[in-house]
């Protein structure tokens, strides 16, 4: 078994945060965002964004699973037999996701109840397998960790923005704290209604669509040649 993969500083040249390495984190935030550009992981972006707190837990869980998984797979990349590499990646992903699930249930039970079903579905989140197969299998652990971090942050900010709009218009709150006063509501004699559409998954798709629209309008790199 080769061990040199575990020590990225073995080769003298590259500093830990070289330009190339920084791009691994910053690229997925905008130019190569997993949700809005690669359109991966959409299903969880629709399902889990009713409340910001759920989106946050989901993002942290995905971050843990992608970063740790990337490092493990990258360290093993020279020994994973290529014929079973997808299965090996899946076993590692499933193992990590199950670990996260068990820990959520033990330590943050209330959140686990809310996001429980979706945590299991992280296994099928395309971002995971995408990063494992496309990046970690061909790169050293440190860049893989950065790549995982970048991609999950890119995933996280979209999730949080979508959840922000859905929660404020759907439930009149942000992170569970009420921002639209109770007295505004029509049940209390006011003029305001929560938008029930916001609570349902289709609105998440619309919001993601709007984010993609704005992003493409501003980021010229994403505009395809006419």
């Amino acid at each position, binding site marked *: 078994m080769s061990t040199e993969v575990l020590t990225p500083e073995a080769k003298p040249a590259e500093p830990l945060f070289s330009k190339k390495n920084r791009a691994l984190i910053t690229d997925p935030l905008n130019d190569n965002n997993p949700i809005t550009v690669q359109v991966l992981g959409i299903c969880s972006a629709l399902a889990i964004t009713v409340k910001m707190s759920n989106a946050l837990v989901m993002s942290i869980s995905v971050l843990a699973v992608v970063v740790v998984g990337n490092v493990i797979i990258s360290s093993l990349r020279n020994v994973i037999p290529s014929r*079973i590499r997808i299965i090996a990646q899946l076993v590692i992903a499933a193992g990590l996701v199950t670990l996260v699930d068990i820990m959520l249930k033990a330590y943050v039970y209330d959140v686990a109840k809310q996001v429980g079903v979706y945590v299991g579905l992280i296994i099928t989140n395309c971002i995971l397998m995408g990063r494992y197969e496309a990046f970690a299998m061909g790169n050293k652990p440190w860049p893989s960790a950065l790549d995982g971090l970048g991609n999950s942050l890119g995933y996280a900010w979209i999730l949080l923005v979508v959840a922000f709009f859905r929660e404020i218009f759907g439930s009149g709150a942000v992170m569970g704290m009420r921002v639209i006063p109770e007295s505004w509501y029509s049940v209390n004699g006011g003029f305001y209604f929560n938008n029930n559409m916001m609570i349902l998954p289709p609105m998440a798709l619309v919001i993601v669509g709007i984010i993609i629209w704005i992003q493409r309008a501003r980021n010229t790199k994403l505009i395809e040649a006419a």
Partner: protein
Amino acid sequence: MAFDKNSNSFTFIFAAVLVTVVGTLLAVTYMSLKPAYTENVRREKMQNILSAMNVKVARDAAPEKYKELITETLLVNAQGKPVEGDAFSLDVLKQYKDWKAGEVKSEDLKYPVYKATGAEGQLYILPMVGTGLWGPVWGYLSVKKDGRTVYGSTFDHKGETPGLGAEIATPVFQDQFPGKTIADENGTYTGIKVYKGGTGTTDPHGVDGISGGTITSDGVNEMLIRTLAIYDVYLKSTNTSTAAR
């Protein structure tokens, strides 16, 4: 490198080692965190029982409050007669699923009763399970000493539609229950009906359902009528014995 990582034997060895390592890791973590999880579930159940008698406590404070307020627990059988057994550890949701699957007969079902002493005197807290649109719905109803007036309620669900069926878990639905009765003045059983949403019912034995959550409301209706019928027999029997005293 001396070995061929793509040889058949190495592929098998790699797969076996990987699966063993991951499996062991998961088993160890699960076993070590299971007590914390089971404790969370236990506390949540206590929290729900207390919530049905309008006592809202944090999950961590639930065991203490439960010990203070719940005076007695018992099981009743399908004929409404008290039987031996531990009420708290009976998983009514599992029992319901087994019953639906035909593994448990109707006459073998057990119904837990929690007796509590609150600010309003003695209460009976009655758990129940039914089926909503997407999965199970369940709840606890507390009934006053007279055995027919509802004091409080709490309902929850596994995955009803947010904003529609899921509204059964909110005060909008639950606050309709206090003051309703499960039997009329002559003691004839009525249960509590859940009417179609938005009708604004004034029925003393019925509540308004959820608009747009008709199937969930129907499920809650079925659950209430079916389960309360059993509890009604029990409540009547205890109240006659108190009256005869």
